[in-house]
């Protein structure tokens, strides 16, 4: 781990790999410092925001350096979420299949046969960046011209990432399917997915989609 200044607001922890970053973020959320305001992970990096009224950068960095980061209980604490996905509603399923040279069923089986890690949340509130796609599905380029509106629930992919649009937004990712579930609800302060969690997609058909539409993602506790 390397500790760097994010201006005078946070210590940025640069980690060896995504797993180490997720474990560090989980550990800090589980057992926060008194001066800690916020913890944000994205891929290999974790920003630990501190309250400058309570601590200086040098003290924050010292405390982080001295911390014991090898807590195996915390390492296992991420949740696993199962996200139903209707691939028949994937606007770009055909384009993806052509690009990767697989038939539609093989694309679907590959996409929902992988357990993804949540490496970052951003772009819009609650949007999980999931990785990494298995090689056969990797490197589908962005759309030449982004859609002006991608519906909430759309499951997209590009490069080595897949993710779920939690709000309707303009977007350039290829859309492989759509989930009927709400993955977050800002107005109700409800955000069940955090970095370090894992996500698996489960294939559903259009009648399942209609039945589940608008429901919240069920929360499963780690077993």
């Amino acid at each position, binding site marked *: 781990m390397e500790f*760097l*200044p*994010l*201006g*005078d*607001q*946070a210590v*940025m922890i640069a980690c060896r790999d995504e797993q180490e970053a997720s474990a560090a*973020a989980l550990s800090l*959320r589980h057992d926060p410092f008194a001066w800690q*305001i*916020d*913890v*944000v*992970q*994205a*891929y*290999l*990096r*974790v*920003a630990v*925001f501190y309250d*400058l*009224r309570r601590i*200086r*950068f*040098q003290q924050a960095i010292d405390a982080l350096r001295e911390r014991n980061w090898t807590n195996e209980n915390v390492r296992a604490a991420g949740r696993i979420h199962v996200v139903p996905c209707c691939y028949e509603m994937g606007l770009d399923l055909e384009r993806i299949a052509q690009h990767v040279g697989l038939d539609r069923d093989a694309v679907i089986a590959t996409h929902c046969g992988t357990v993804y890690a949540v490496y*970052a*949340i*951003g*772009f*819009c*509130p*609650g*949007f999980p*960046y999931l990785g990494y796609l298995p090689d056969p599905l990797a490197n589908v380029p962005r759309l030449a011209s982004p859609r002006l509106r991608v519906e909430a629930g759309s499951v997209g992919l590009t490069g080595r990432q897949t993710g779920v649009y939690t709000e309707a937004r303009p977007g350039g990712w290829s859309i492989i399917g759509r989930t009927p579930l709400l993955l*977050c609800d*800002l*107005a*109700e*302060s409800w*955000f069940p997915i*955090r*970095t370090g969690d894992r996500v698996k997609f489960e294939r559903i058909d259009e009648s399942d989609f209609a039945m589940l539409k608008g429901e919240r993602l069920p929360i499963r506790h780690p077993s």
Partner: protein
Amino acid sequence: MSFAVLAAGVESRLVDAGRTSTRGFGVPIGGAADRRSWRLGNALVGNASDALALEVALAGPTLRAEHAMHAVVFGAPFVVSTDRGSLVVGKTFDLEPGETLRIGGTPAGVRAYLCVHGGFEGREILGSRSALQPIHVGETLACAESRGRIRSAPLDHPSLRLLDSWTLRVLPGLQRRQFPGAARDFPPLFAASVFRATNASNRMGVRLEGPPIAIPPDEISSEPVCPGTIQTTRDGQCIVLGIDGQTIGGYPKLAQVIQADLDALAQIRPGDEVRFVSCSIQEAEAAFRSREAETREWETRWSA
């Protein structure tokens, strides 16, 4: 019932200290962009420093008071009037039932805060009552009836004197050393240039126009960012992230505006000149502490 919104203005929204502990959900901080002005406005009408206020930007709203209210507009020198005549930014006033408050434009700066005694009401989301959307025509802004003693900030107060040329202090950004020509300090074009804020500036960020800066050749993966982070886009132009800025970003970060200068960032107007000067982390911390102490002192004095 309280204020009826007759005209919404360019971007008027209810704000408090925002959501500083939920960036991990991808939710921007939000809340008052110029925190000192918001706090001092609240102090003048005798509010707790975290009371909900109406932030107005560039061209303000027209509001009709449904009952008596004690209020103030604090921040950029907006043109403010009621049915009875013009008002002064930084001096409290009483509104009579049915009276219309007009907040017009400002010759300098961008934002000011309409604070009413007792604060506005709003629903809490993730620990803050800051609204997720600007106000709109026909909406009602709820607050309690109030009357109060007229008081005034010193009208030559530094928070009320705004400039059209700004110098922001910066610390190095995380990719600063990867920029071509940045061996020891910032790239010369960054350190020595005068930038101009463009019309595309808003609460998400201040977009600058200047000589194009050569960017690092390598792609970087997204990492956490915060208000004040200066990202350089592929065309070599800089964006300084604002209070509603994104929580993670994948552009190379050249520099980071210090916390003590973030209120100034919120007052940079399209067309204003912006320069950057580097400082040390110790200087940044000292600047934050003395600014915070100064704000507290005024809050105490004005609310007494």
